[in-house]
């Protein structure tokens, strides 16, 4: 590739992760392991480099919709369609804590504030912030100014970015005490703040990803090419924010160049709608899951 960091394009190991489809995949902080959550109500811990399954976590009674891992790799949280979020110790078999309070299925979870806050967005139109340091049953705060289901949450620093089906991106700034609302008018399914706090990627259901300037909300770039009309497909930045990687309903993974919005690579191999992707935190590698239940690793060509 002609960019300094090669784009992941080589298919690596394929693992049959979940029966019936997988909904979420995450790398841990150092990229040595990845976790998947699927429709078979299991969360699985994998070593993606050699394709081995390390651990299975049983506890959900409904499919798992989203996962997130703490930065110290000790805990992870899984959100289920059973309106509860389970907090697991990575080494234990049963959940450590269960957060109940949502009245509908939980769509997304994210850790924040040095792993002391867990944010969960739900179909019931609320975002709940749970305290992990105390054993409180109730959340610290419930944000309910959403008009529809909350589908995405991402915490970076003291900002909580949320995406909602009503077409607005709401970023709650805890430090300043304000909410920044960006009107997109299309249902939002993914929100991701770049690591340099300069821009925010918003994925919407019109097969578009928009890159907005964080400070003034201007549109920096638009990425089109993938198909995304109905379902939640995953999207993420690469580790150095040079690529925008997204899944698609046509079972391929599209990698766009951030700056010039060109399609750099299209990774095919999945046999179903790609539901989640995640990029390795340091290397040029990618994991993806799809509704065919497989977990695929994509690496960059080692020669270049």
């Amino acid at each position: 590739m002609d960019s300094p960091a090669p784009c992941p394009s080589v298919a690596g190991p394929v693992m049959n992760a979940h029966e019936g489809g997988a909904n979420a995949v995450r790398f841990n902080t150092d990229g040595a392991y990845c976790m998947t959550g699927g429709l078979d109500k299991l969360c699985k811990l994998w070593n993606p480099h050699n394709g081995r399954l390390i651990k299975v976590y049983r506890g959900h009674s409904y499919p798992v919709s989203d996962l997130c891992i703490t930065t110290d790799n000790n805990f992870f949280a899984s959100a289920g369609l059973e309106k509860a979020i389970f907090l697991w110790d990575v080494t234990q078999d049963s959940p450590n804590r269960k957060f109940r309070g949502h009245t509908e299925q939980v769509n997304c979870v994210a850790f924040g504030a040095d792993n002391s806050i867990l944010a969960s967005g739900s179909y019931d139109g609320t975002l709940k912030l749970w305290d992990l340091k105390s054993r409180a049953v109730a959340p610290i705060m419930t944000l309910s100014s959403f008009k529809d289901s909350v589908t995405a949450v991402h915490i970076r620093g003291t900002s909580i970015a949320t995406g909602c089906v009503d077409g607005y991106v709401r970023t709650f700034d805890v430090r300043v005490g304000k909410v920044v609302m960006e009107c997109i008018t299309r249902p939002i399914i993914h929100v991701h703040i770049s690591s340099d706090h300069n821009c925010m990627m918003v994925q919407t259901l019109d097969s578009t990803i928009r890159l907005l300037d964080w400070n003034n909300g201007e549109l920096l770039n638009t990425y089109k090419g993938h198909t995304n009309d109905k379902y939640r497909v995953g999207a993420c930045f690469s580790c150095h924010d040079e690529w925008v990687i997204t899944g698609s309903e046509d079972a391929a993974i599209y990698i766009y160049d951030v700056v010039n919005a060109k399609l750099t690579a299209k990774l095919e191999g999945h046999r179903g709608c790609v539901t989640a992707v995640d990029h390795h935190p340091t290397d040029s590698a990618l994991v993806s899951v799809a509704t065919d239940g497989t977990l695929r690793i994509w690496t960059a060509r080692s020669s270049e």
Partner: protein
Amino acid sequence: MDEDDVSHELSRSLGTHGQFGREAARSDPNAVVVPSDEYIGHRLLRKLGWRYGEGIGPKVKRSQATAKQEADPKPTKERVVGCALPAELQKQREQPGSAEGGPNEDSSGSDNDADLPQAPVDVRCVDVLQLQDSTCGLGFDPLNAEADVALAKDAKARMSAARLAKNKSNRLGFGDFDQDDGSGLYGDGLEYDVGLLVRGSTDVQHHRRRKLKEPSQEQTDGSLLGYHSANQLRQYVKPWFPPPVVPPDFILFHNHDTDPLPAVLPSLIGFLTPKLRALLLGGILPHPEAPATASSCAAPATESATAPAPAPVPEPQEFQLFGPLHGALKKRFVTGTVQELVHGHAFTHFKGGLYVPKADGEFAGATPLTSLYTGEPDTEAEKAAAENQFGALTRQLRFFFPEPLLCKRFGVPDPHPYEPTKGEAPDVEFNASQPPPPAAERPKPGGIGLTLDDSGSDSEKKGDDDAADQDLPGLMEDRPPMDLFDAIFGEEDEAAAPEENTQSAAQPISALHQMEAEQSAALQDTEVGATTAHASPAADTAPPQAEGLSSRPVTLEEKIDRLKRLLAESSTSSEGEGGAVVVSSGSEGAPRHHKGKRQGDKKASKKAKKKAKKKEKKERRKRKKRRKSRGDAEGAPLVISDSESGSSDSSD
């Protein structure tokens, strides 16, 4: 006791509930209504043409019936209501030689009138209602048991049946001792063990005594098809197949085919009809009278038309579910949200006066539903977004009051510490320079009414900021000054414990102000002079402002001045203003050094108060001297505690 006896007697003879009730009611003198004697069934049947004593069913030739009746006391040949005996037993019961006459058979007979079809004979009632003490089966009449005895093919059974039949009395146990084999109190019990009648075997099987026979000897094509004797079942062996051989490299995996649907995000599937979802979530419908727009909404909202998603998207059915809500009925029903719809417009907060609906039909909510739901961009933000003009136009700022704990977790100071209630204020425009307006003026936001209310963390109504500010001085003004307490208790013990200071002073009654004004000049103490002179200019300024409760925070100096005035007036005049007003000579209007602060330095004021106390004592002594000198029997509005002035008090 009589009643008990009667009821006991009645219970001995079993009867129907109706009978029982009738008997009881007849004997009861207080019974107003006695149940009728007639059975309802009889009444109905009689209306249909039945007469008491007849049977029910199609008419039969009476000649046949009577003939058979005479021959056989049991009228079983006619078709009767209820169950019929099985064919075999029926045949056995029939007398040999009689015709197999069904009730409908035409017999070429005489033209006798008796041959005319007549009602069948009534059923013989089994005497169930007589209390049976015997252990025979229901309906078994030992006296007339010949036929049943004949049934039992086994000689032994016949004997025992005959024995039973011989036994005229039905009492249990009677005659049981005269058994020949004597193997049990009630006999073998074998006479009660009657197995299935199996054709081909002449004996009734007794499962206890029966020897195990080879299965081949027994035939099972008896009258009960499909049933085997229990002896045979032991030989039945289920076929057993070995488990399938699994290849060594087999990995268990189920391939689910196609259809990425399953539960990736049902919410987004439901999104396909956003109007539906708005309805489902109880949100605001932008066009209450427009069911047709749903389809128009759906079309631009989703680029792919429906179709590849077959079953899991039941929108048409769902939509029809909500059909009746539109149109006329819609206005009669209120959604479960906080927001009211008046004339189709959102009615967010109440203002007194004439209700004027908003002309443009916009909602007073924070973010109206986007073009997602309406199909067209409504607000500027949406229009800008539709044109891809993202930026200032599409961006809106709102207030956000994070909980203190949340701020602590994030490691930031609370950005709005003076905001009493935390949560969101989605309708208030955020302005970095100005503080958020008090809650009373904030419009009520419209949200989805689905959330659980967390106590205190997300309340939409906030407290009044201004009131909070005014609380403190109000409190302070209500409490009497410490000087008052000093005056009351100071003389008693000189070493009074240092009281906690309050920077509050009693709010004098307006009448007192006038008095102060009048008598401020009267205060002429040498010691006080200097301070009074100092205080008087302040005193002059104080009264015009202090009308009742002050409208602005009262400084300590002013309070002290007031106290001084009060004291002066109390000391010079005999007007009993009541102890409440009593105040020590605030002359030690030791000008407090902290000015203007409501909460001055506590330590400084304490010291000042101690000084004040001492001065006050001196003051009192001088006053007493004055009194004595003047000989005034003035009342001490100076309450109590003054031991020296006690006499003067009493004299008051």
